[in-house]
């Protein structure tokens, strides 16, 4: 290993340099993941969304609203009993066949949330899923930024004929 073959003071300098890069890299990761981002300023509105639930799909399965919107969901079960349970929100509905169930919630939390059928409706019931997006999908953006950082970091740490991290991993 390169580090071991260097004189002690050079090896120490190398270690500090490596540590500095690792700290910078870790700080960048944390910043990308947790830095607060401003939500676009939109006026909250009332939204009425009719969702038809049939085995094993919601229609529409992808819904987009703005943060602060007051959302009324009208769930219609077209074949058997279906439910509607929204991740991240304490919001659940259950509709009997041919019947409608209605409920309202305020989309306070931003992000992408899955909604799932909450009543066993057949073999694929555990995978009957839809998607509610409240405002922009920051997590996807953070993921893309983190991926970019990962690529840059991987190539940077292994730059040149010897690796900056050669003392840590083989």
């Amino acid at each position, binding site marked *: 290993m390169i580090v071991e073959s260097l004189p002690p003071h050079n090896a120490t300098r190398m270690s500090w340099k490596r540590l500095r890069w690792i700290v910078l890299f870790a700080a960048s990761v944390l910043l990308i993941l947790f830095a607060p981002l401003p939500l676009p300023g939109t006026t909250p509105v009332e939204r009425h969304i009719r969702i038809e639930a049939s085995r094993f799909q919601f229609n529409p399965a992808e819904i987009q609203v703005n943060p602060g919107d007051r959302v009324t969901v009208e769930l219609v079960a077209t074949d058997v009993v279906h439910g509607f349970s929204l991740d991240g929100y304490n919001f659940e509905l259950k509709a009997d066949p041919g019947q409608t169930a209605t409920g309202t919630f305020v989309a306070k939390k931003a992000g992408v949330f899955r909604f799932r059928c909450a009543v066993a409706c057949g*073999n694929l019931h555990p995978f009957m899923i839809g998607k509610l997006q409240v405002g922009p999908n920051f997590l996807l953006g953070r993921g893309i930024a983190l991926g970019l950082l990962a690529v840059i970091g991987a190539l940077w740490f292994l730059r040149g004929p010897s690796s900056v991290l050669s003392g840590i991993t083989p």
Partner: protein
Amino acid sequence: MNRLDLTRIPLMRAFLLNRWPQFLLRAITLAGFVFTIVAGLFGSVVGGHNFAIIFVWIAWWTALKLFFIPFGGRSWCAICPIPMPGEWLQHGGILQPRRKGSAPGRRWPKALRGNWLQAGGFLLVGLFGALTLTTASVTALVLLGIFVLAFVLSLVFERRSFCNYLCPIGGFTGLYAQAGPVEVRVKDARVCAAHAEKTCYDACPWGLYPLALKSSANCGLCMECLRVCPVDNIAVNLRPWGSDLGPQTRHRLDEAFLGLVMLASVLVDAAVFLGPWGQLKSAAYATGSLSWFVFSGGFLVTALGILPGLYTIAAWVSMRLGAAKVTLRQSLAQYSQVLVPLGLMAWIAFTVAFAFAKFSYVLPVISDPLGWGWNLIGIAGTAWVGQSTPASLLIQVVLLAGGLFWASRVARRVSGSAKGALPLVAFSSIFSLGMLWLLVG
């Protein structure tokens, strides 16, 4: 060397040398396996209430990806019940080591060696995945079929031919065991070279000679070489993750194929089981229907066309940019290592998304394993609708980014230059972006 030899820890050494602990674990897994088949065949048709579905596809499949492989490489293979009866028959006893000349059997046909058939098996699992994952009787029949096949093959072919060349799970664990932190290696190569008897090779159910081990892909960690070595020259090392990956190991084209099939499978599974597309789910489930054939076509085009095509372009460009003179075949084979961390982390991320939301089914099914209305430990009917939490979504993002980081490092190390690694990094980025979109998009 940055290795910790576990056999230097007296308690661990005693545990590994004794055949009883492993036998007991295997007996438990065999009993669980038989019960799973019984539950699948005679239990409730409602998947969420049947032990076979919940324990195979949520508990075990999750444990394999989140525990066994990341922390133990092929450790599951050491306690897998499927090859046990055949192996006992071959060895002439339950606690017997394999001996030279015992049940010789035929050698596996040369044309069928490698990971090709395992990759094909995994493709089949994917094509029928929606049906198998949700129908207890189908899960039971698949397990029974695999069990019988492994037994019959052990009567005809030598050693663990089924595990080595056919088992889809063996292919999965073997591929990703290269990234795992456990390895069996010799302590001193000179000692082995001077030892004429090769007792370790004779005893190995996998047909491996420890002195020649460079990769952990095919080692099932059964510890037989450790037990029979007369000169105590076998080490069971804890090592840094990904130690097998880099320019020092040689790889084959079939490993690239297996790696690509795994990438395609995790993409398709994420789309089918976690996506909001009901028609896709129904098509994947309706085996034999026109929509299923369309789904199968899309799956096969992804697994055999799009991903291999993109990967071939990346390997070809990398070959052109790199300084070393290699053929495209060599480039495709050598860069297969990039697919290992990429796929492993994608499968783990998928599992976090999939299993965490479904884990509430696991405990209640212990209370009523056949779905017959029992309540053995008083927690039947307590399953709730699982959900993704912000933490689990964040973990998925970090896992995917970690996979991309790791894959980029491997690409860089294999290619020897940043320029040569870039095409493979671009390939990995496209794949990771696709997974990211499917999981948190």
